[in-house]
């Protein structure tokens, strides 16, 4: 369940991500009434098994069973805001009537991981997920060579262009007037590492605050360019982190700003 809104008197309109048919829209009749057999099973971020009856107009949910409720995501603002972001990202990439087994699996697995993840590892998981999702849809950023001239990148600071889709070398950076983001060596290394890491490797990665922010900015601008719009739930994600002061998680022994610690190599 990636999206839900009220419909009519007491119905709900659902948007579901399914493995076999991609994005699906369906109505759940009377789901907002207490005692509704459907209502209790249908909520955002729930992994559900549903039966659909097709007829004229919108498909209707005839039966729903919760497979995973992800309670661990729902009890905690930090995890909740991140879980919603993961789901929205999957939704943005998905289309109707097109199988999306890979992205579906990726979303469910990542939500499962997030549910039990300590706060300090969650951002790395999100960046890893973004790169995976981009890769599965053929939009992975070019991080190995200059995206323009394809020359090998020297071991030094470069810039990043979302419009061109990757790292840009010093010779090419003046070509074009697209917005450029700083991409220091450590940031490039972190991105490359996350791009080929498994998720357990990704969540083991310790990154300093500055690098973490820069990596996030690069991927956010890349996603914005690819999707041609903002991912709306980033607003809540940022708000929870910043305004509520729900700690920019500072776990013990991890002083901020000390750069990449577990060296991502390459």
């Amino acid at each position: 369940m990636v999206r839900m809104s009220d419909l009519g008197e007491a119905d709900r309109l659902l948007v579901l991500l399914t493995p076999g048919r991609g994005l699906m829209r369906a109505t759940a009749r009377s789901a907002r009434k207490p005692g509704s057999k459907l209502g209790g099973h249908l909520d955002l971020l729930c992994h559900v098994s549903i039966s659909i009856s097709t007829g004229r107009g919108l498909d209707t949910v005839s039966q729903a069973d919760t497979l995973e409720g992800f309670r661990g995501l729902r009890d905690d603002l930090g995890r909740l805001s991140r879980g919603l972001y993961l789901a929205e990202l999957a939704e943005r990439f998905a289309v109707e009537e097109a199988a999306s087994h890979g992205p579906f699996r990726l979303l469910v697995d990542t939500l499962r991981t997030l549910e039990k993840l300590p706060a300090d590892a969650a951002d790395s998981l999100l960046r890893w997920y973004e790169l995976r999702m981009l890769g599965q849809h053929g939009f992975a950023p070019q991080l190995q060579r200059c995206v323009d001239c394809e020359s090998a990148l020297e071991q030094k600071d470069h810039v990043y262009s979302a419009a061109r889709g990757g790292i840009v070398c010093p010779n090419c950076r003046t070509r074009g007037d697209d917005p450029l983001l700083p991409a220091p060596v450590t940031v490039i290394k972190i991105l490359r590492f996350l791009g080929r890491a498994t998720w357990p490797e990704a969540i083991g990665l310790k990154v300093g605050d500055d690098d973490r922010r820069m990596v996030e900015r690069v991927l956010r601008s890349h996603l914005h360019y690819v999707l041609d719009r903002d991912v709306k739930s980033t607003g809540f994600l940022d708000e929870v982190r910043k305004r509520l002061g729900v700690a920019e998680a500072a776990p013990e022994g991890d002083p901020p700003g000390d750069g990449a610690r577990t060296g991502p190599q390459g």
Partner: protein
Amino acid sequence: MDGHRAASLAPPVARLIEAFRKLPGVGPKSAQRLAYHLIRMPRAEAESLAEAILAVKDRIVLCQVCQNITESTPCPICSDQSRDRTRICVVEEPLDSMAIERTRSYDGLYHVLHGVISPVNGIGADDLKVRELLERLRDESVTEVILATNPNLEGEATAMYLQRLLKPLGIAVSRLARGLSSGADLEYADESTLAHALQGRTRSADQDASQSL
């Protein structure tokens, strides 16, 4: 297809259908049905409907205190001196406060948020009457805030968010007890269930220890 058909309709009809379509829960088919119903309606009835719409726009305001819809501000509940002014029950919509009033088991005040935090729709606390709530808590002698948002993910997210926000103020914060069937809307809860949920409300545990981000 509907857009196509509407384009060949007489412009006033198309305009009316378009206006209905903007209403919550009204799809293209219902919009057409409503429009054709109005066309067949006696003129006097149509005029009275139009007047009723203008009357809400002209006469209904938001209560400056609780943000509920009212004809006069402060609203009757906020002006009622016999009510317990140390408690504020926070609800998503005006209808929710009416549902709680019907239980007759709550005599405190309300605060209407006019929505719920909905991250995937880009609706955050700034789009709700949250600042007004904080303002109220600074002035009044409120000792308890009851968060009565809907028992679904967005309602819970809103409640957790407010809980976080209110924590530094040192006011007791409670949530409605479970027993409300999850997934359902408050406005549909039957009175006894809702009354029980109010009585059995739980002091929000200090979640900080387990909060992670």
